[in-house]
């Protein structure tokens, strides 16, 4: 195992994809993490011995997953078209969302999450407790009124009124109508936190989809999300930023010592403190707080506010 030369880095020696190694120096592979841990921290004279490799591998992957959830800031983005069914299927490696955008008229518009329910299951029903069942005794599902109204656009929004602002007659003073029926954004009691003209969405985690209101039909949607870094199970592609390399070793060491029988409490505590300190250090490093950047921010301190 050697470092790759610059030709390999820039061109991958002509093998497709030629950009495979770009930026690779920032990362250390899972294979290296496990190998280095076995060499340096596990053995006859180390704190950890007689440990199965699959246990080390498990803790290494768990550590990388945890880092991907927040500390790494490795945000992925996926753009898809939302069709008439107003759904955006969550990516295969989706764990949590960061931001959702509507790409329209060459502008990225950040969308607001609708806190109201936007989708529901419904059964074929004739009375309160009379449902239609299939041969397995399961209640037969049918599209809910909520879903159909959301899709055909008849579902009212609590965020903005329906009528278009341009249709307001400036010559007629009809305050109630203006305030309550037009999208003028001034309704009394309006939730200003969420009020904007862009489509809204809710995420149905169990169903694995994002549901939109009807104004999102046939629009381009960009989802920013985080994954767990497991690269769909391909161990050879899993990696960790070098700024977190020492933390990962400390995490594995702590996780093993903490679950091992007969390890003295002070050793477990030492490993825990070590792990936490290294995580803090790595987060500070990754945050890229440079004096010059701080200086630029401070230049705004004497700005006049209107």
């Amino acid at each position, binding site marked *: 195992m050697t470092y790759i030369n610059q030709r390999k880095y820039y061109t991958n020696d002509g093998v497709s994809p030629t950009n495979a190694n770009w930026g690779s120096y920032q990362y250390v592979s899972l*294979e290296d993490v496990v190998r280095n841990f076995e060499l340096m921290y596990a053995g*006859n*004279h180390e704190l950890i011995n007689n440990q199965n*490799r*699959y246990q080390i*591998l498990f803790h290494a*992957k768990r550590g990388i997953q945890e880092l991907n959830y927040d500390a790494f800031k490795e945000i992925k983005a996926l753009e898809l078209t939302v069709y008439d069914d107003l759904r955006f299927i969550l990516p295969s490696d989706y764990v949590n969302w960061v931001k959702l955008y509507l790409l329209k008229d060459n502008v990225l518009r950040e969308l607001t999450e609708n806190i109201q329910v936007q989708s529901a299951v419904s059964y074929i029903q004739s009375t309160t407790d009379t449902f239609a069942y299939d041969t397995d005794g399961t209640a037969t599902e049918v599209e809910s009124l909520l879903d159909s109204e959301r899709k055909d656009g008849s579902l009212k929004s609590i965020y903005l009124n329906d009528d278009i602002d341009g249709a307001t007659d400036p010559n007629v003073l009809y305050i109630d109508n203006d305030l309550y029926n037009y999208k003028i954004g001034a309704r009394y009691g309006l939730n200003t936190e969420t009020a904007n003209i862009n489509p809204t969405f809710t995420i149905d985690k169990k169903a694995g989809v994002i549901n939109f209101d009807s104004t999102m039909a046939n629009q381009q949607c960009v989802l920013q999300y985080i994954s767990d870094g*497991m690269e769909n199970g391909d*161990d*050879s592609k899993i990696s960790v930023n070098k700024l977190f390399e020492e933390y990962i070793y400390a995490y594995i060491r702590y996780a093993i010592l903490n679950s091992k029988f007969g390890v003295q409490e002070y050793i477990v505590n030492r490993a825990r403190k070590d792990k936490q300190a290294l995580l803090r250090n790595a987060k500070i490093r990754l945050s890229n707080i440079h004096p010059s950047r701080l200086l630029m921010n401070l230049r705004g301190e004497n700005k006049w506010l209107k």
Partner: protein
Amino acid sequence: MINSVRNTVLAIINKNNYGYISPGDFNLFAKQAQLDIFDEYFIRYNQQINEENARISGTGYADIKKGYEEVIDTFSITSFLTQKTGNVYYLPSQSTTGSDYYLLNKVLCFSDGNLKGEAEKVSHSKITMLNSSLLTSPSTIFPAYTQEADEITIFPNTFNGINDVQAQYIRYPLDPKWTYVTLYGGEPLFDQTQNDYQDFELPIDDANNLVAKILQYAGISIREADVFQFGQIEEQDQNRNNI
């Protein structure tokens, strides 16, 4: 070394005309003694590691563990394993790799001639769960194997070529054989030019141990308790010196 060991054993036994050991018996006792001492190397090696952890062992010329490792490594063999079918391979044996294994130390997995990873031995009680686990199922770079009878099964089963699995193992020492030519009316005369001649494979400093061990077996064989006890005391002295 085998001739000097035999001469020493005979010299001790013949004192007071206790008895005589035939070459056939000597070879049997020699084989048994060599196996005993070979086995003890691994136990002593472990003891030495414990002593190092207790900080009662030194480095440099005081590095006893290094000496044990050197002896054990003289029996090390690296060889591709013979494929039985698919991802199942035969363990090292006389018929496949040319020598029986005492300890399977390392199993390496190759693909298209390139080393992919070292396979980890997993018990049968774990392998089913391991294969079902998303995070830890064996992969090309982290393969695993289980052992059953004289076979090992490699996971994942993509390792299924003739030269896909290589093992580094510690073989058993070869059976020592003191060979001779028979003279008229006399004693057998040592002859190391014969094809089946085989010296001890243990280092020279084990000669004393071999003598002590063989004496114990011989003492029982000729029903002489004194010989047995002498061998036993000699062995204890040797072991005490080694600690």
